């Protein structure tokens, strides 16, 4: 049970009769006792007349998924199965990061009726957001005291990665379309396939004229080529401890997710098959054999609950994982953090195994703070800071050099720039027919 502010106010009002009657009849103590007794009686009457908060059936509808930053409505249905009218304040105990617009709603439910309480959820963290309980505070007719009970009513909503990088998608798709149907000589070779025949227009390379087709038609025909389709793209996301670090107030893993989503969206439109593996020392998530819109929905679903673990990434298992996905030559994208050589030693040791069969791209976030720190040399502390920043960049450069020597492609960029940079590299590789 609990009491309301109304009871506190009413108790305080007791000062008036105590002073007044106490002056008149010199019986302040008796008045005090009488007032307190009256309050106790009122509270007991109120509690007895309050509807039981336990006689309440709870049901809820919550959308299964929401993208981070968006708002959805969650509805709680309360049915009064008791005999009295329920006047209550209801708390739906969502986790704080579910971003509920309110967790306390006043409600009046006559006997046998049902009410819906709709609140807006604007989650501000990725992952699974839950509510386990509904607490009902049922006030009596006087509103002085309330009976309180907590009811089990679990609900959950999966908060998907925001995929802010989708704003880069239209421009990249447009560039991808430009690749199709380009005159053959530009890109003809390994990694391109025959697309169609069309009439010769001025400016086409004469070497792309298909003479046999020209003989069959009355016009001069040229062959066009398009990038080879049905290539495989394997995205490996490191979920180890280095991915927990925040750069520009975004954990590295979120940048990795954004990059992976943009690349997957692009690659599936280009007709390639995309597989996703999230791994640290155990398989954290995997998407295999999906394509089109289903691919992205499955990817965000898999990514949603993944938080970086505070353990070291086990790179030695990665070649095996890639082999499980495909033995075909494919584009392997490793989304990780390139740090000092000591930390990245394992990564460097397995890259040759991958480059033997696959085209490997390593994508890593660089810290804009470090890059900016290099040029700030105002005072003593800033010069030392610049030296430390140079040293950090040098470490990254050394790892990058080694990875490039082993045949991997390395992309480093600030968090906001990494997804489009990776997409551009994919398009460049596609255009060059290297896939």
């Amino acid at each position, binding site marked *: 049970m609990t*009491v309301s502010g109304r*009871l*506190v106010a009413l*108790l305080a009002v007791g*000062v008036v009769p*105590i002073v007044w009657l*106490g002056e008149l009849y010199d019986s302040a*103590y008796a008045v*005090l006792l009488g007032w*307190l007794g009256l309050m106790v009686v009122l509270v007991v009457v109120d509690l007895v007349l309050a509807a039981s908060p336990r006689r309440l*059936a709870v049901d809820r509808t919550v*959308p299964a998924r929401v993208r981070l930053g968006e708002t959805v*409505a969650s*509805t709680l*249905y309360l049915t009064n*199965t008791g005999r009295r009218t329920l006047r209550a304040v209801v708390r739906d*105990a969502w*986790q*704080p*990061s579910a971003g509920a617009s*309110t967790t*306390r*709603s*006043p409600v009046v439910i006559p006997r046998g*009726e*049902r009410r*819906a*309480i*709709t609140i807006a959820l604007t989650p501000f963290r990725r992952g699974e957001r839950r*509510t386990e309980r509904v607490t009902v*505070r049922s006030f009596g007719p006087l509103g002085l005291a309330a009976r*309180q009970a*907590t*009811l*089990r009513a679990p609900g959950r909503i999966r908060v*998907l*990665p925001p995929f802010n990088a989708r704003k880069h*998608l239209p421009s990249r798709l447009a560039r991808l379309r430009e690749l199709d149907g380009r005159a053959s000589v530009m890109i003809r070779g390994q990694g391109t396939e025959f697309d169609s025949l069309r009439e010769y227009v001025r400016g086409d390379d004469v070497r792309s004229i298909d003479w046999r087709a020209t003989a069959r038609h009355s016009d001069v025909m040229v062959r066009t080529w398009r990038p080879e389709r049905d290539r495989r793209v394997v995205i490996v996301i490191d979920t180890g401890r280095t991915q927990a670090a*925040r750069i520009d107030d975004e*954990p590295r893993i979120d940048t990795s997710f954004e990059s992976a989503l943009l690349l997957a*969206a692009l690659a599936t439109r280009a007709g390639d098959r995309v597989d996703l593996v999230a791994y640290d020392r155990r398989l954290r998530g995997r998407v295999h054999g999906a394509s089109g819109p289903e691919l*992205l*929905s499955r990817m*965000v*679903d898999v990514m949603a609950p993944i938080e970086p673990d505070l353990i070291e990434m086990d790179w030695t298992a990665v070649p095996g994982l890639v082999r499980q996905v495909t033995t075909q030559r494919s584009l392997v994208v490793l989304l990780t953090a390139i740090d000092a050589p000591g930390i990245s030693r394992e990564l460097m040791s397995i890259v040759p195994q991958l480059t033997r069969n696959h085209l490997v791209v390593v994508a890593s976030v660089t810290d804009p*703070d470090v890059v900016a720190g*290099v040029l700030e*040399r105002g005072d*003593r*502390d800033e*010069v*030392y800071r610049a*030296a*430390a920043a*140079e040293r950090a*960049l040098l470490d*990254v*450069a050394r790892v*990058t050099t080694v990875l490039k020597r082993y045949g991997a492609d390395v992309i*480093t960029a600030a968090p906001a720039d990494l997804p489009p940079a990776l997409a551009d590299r994919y398009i460049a590789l596609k255009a060059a027919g290297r896939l």
Partner: protein
Amino acid sequence: MTAAPPAAPVPPMPSAPAGPGGLVEPVGPVGSGSPGAAAVTASAVAETPRLRTTARRWLFWVVVVVAAVVFAVISVLLTASGAPDAERFSIGSAGPSGSEAVAEVLRQQGVDVVAAGTMAEAVAAVDAADGDATVLFIDPYGYLDDDQLGQVGGLGSELVLVEPGSAELSVFAPAVAPAGAAEEADAVDAGCRLPAAERAGDISRPTATYRMIDAGADSVTCFRSYDDAFGVVQVPGDADAGSGSGSDSGTVTVFGAGDALTNDGVLLRGNAALSLGVLGTHPTLVWYMPTYADVAGGPEPTIGELTPGWVTPVILLLLVVVVAAGVWRGRRFGPVVVENLPVTVRASETMEGRARLYAKQSAHVRALDALRIGTISRLTVALALPRHASVVDVSRAVASVTGLPVDQVHDTLVGALPRSEADLLALSDRLLVLEQAVHRATHDGPPATSSPSG
């Protein structure tokens, strides 16, 4: 392309987000086919234990606390009723300094011993005895003022002052003055013609002695301690002292042998004989020990008496209000919701830490090395030199592009050794200037704003 559409569309969902307090809308009675939820009539499972369960869980402790409180109250009551009255000369006290023994013996001898704590009680007791009473007066704290002392002087037919101070003596027996403590001695002889003293023979050493300053004919001095200091002095009553109810022809006995009245000392030597003889001359003995209630004009009114009667109840009510407000605000609205929060690690922390290490160790050579390597690698890229070009090659290229002397460029890039932090700062600035010069020369435009490539 969207990430994922929400699952099955939810029936009656308002498109606008709910306002504060949520949006409450009636859905209709149970089973009216309202969408979204099937007709539910079973109550939800409550996690809060019922009152009965809670009561059962706490029963043991309630019993323990109640038992402890009852035990404490009972023991306090028992000890309070048997609390010893430790006042000296109190006839209710059986302790060493009390006087119960003397009073009891006198009662056995037929003397009506009446204890009086206030002037009113003393007057009433004397009146009850028709004035034929001995008044024993002990006022070690000096509660009474001169007027009240005068009133005491008029009481009874005989007045016994036990260890009086000079204030009492000046009222009751102006001829007697205190003579300080008695000399060290096991006993003092009576040496006088007072019947009680003669019967006693000798008594233990008196606690206070008195001397006559104006020896009258009827005064008797007994138990001489030294020179003219006596343990007991009897003088005739002062006829001028007030208008008492008793006769004014009584005597005033200044009784310095206080130990003779206590339970502890009454049995020594002739103490018992002396005290019984002095106090037992009349059928009634009023044992008057003034208390605080006798203080002239009554006690000063306390703040408690000055404040109106409703103040304390109002304070109590406000206390109850505070407790109720605490319950109102402090009652938790259901259990706390827990959530695992992510760690917040800024990636640049390692860089900052390394910078602080450099600064702490004043590692200016090492710091400058890092700066120079960075500059040289950027210059190599800017000047399109091979990646493994030596510093000399870079210096030459820079000099040829910018027109600076080769020696100076070489000195900046590798030659000069910093001896202090001032050197470090100067060289760092020179490196930046060099980079800007090369950038200007190669780009023919405004100075570099682009960040160095990682």
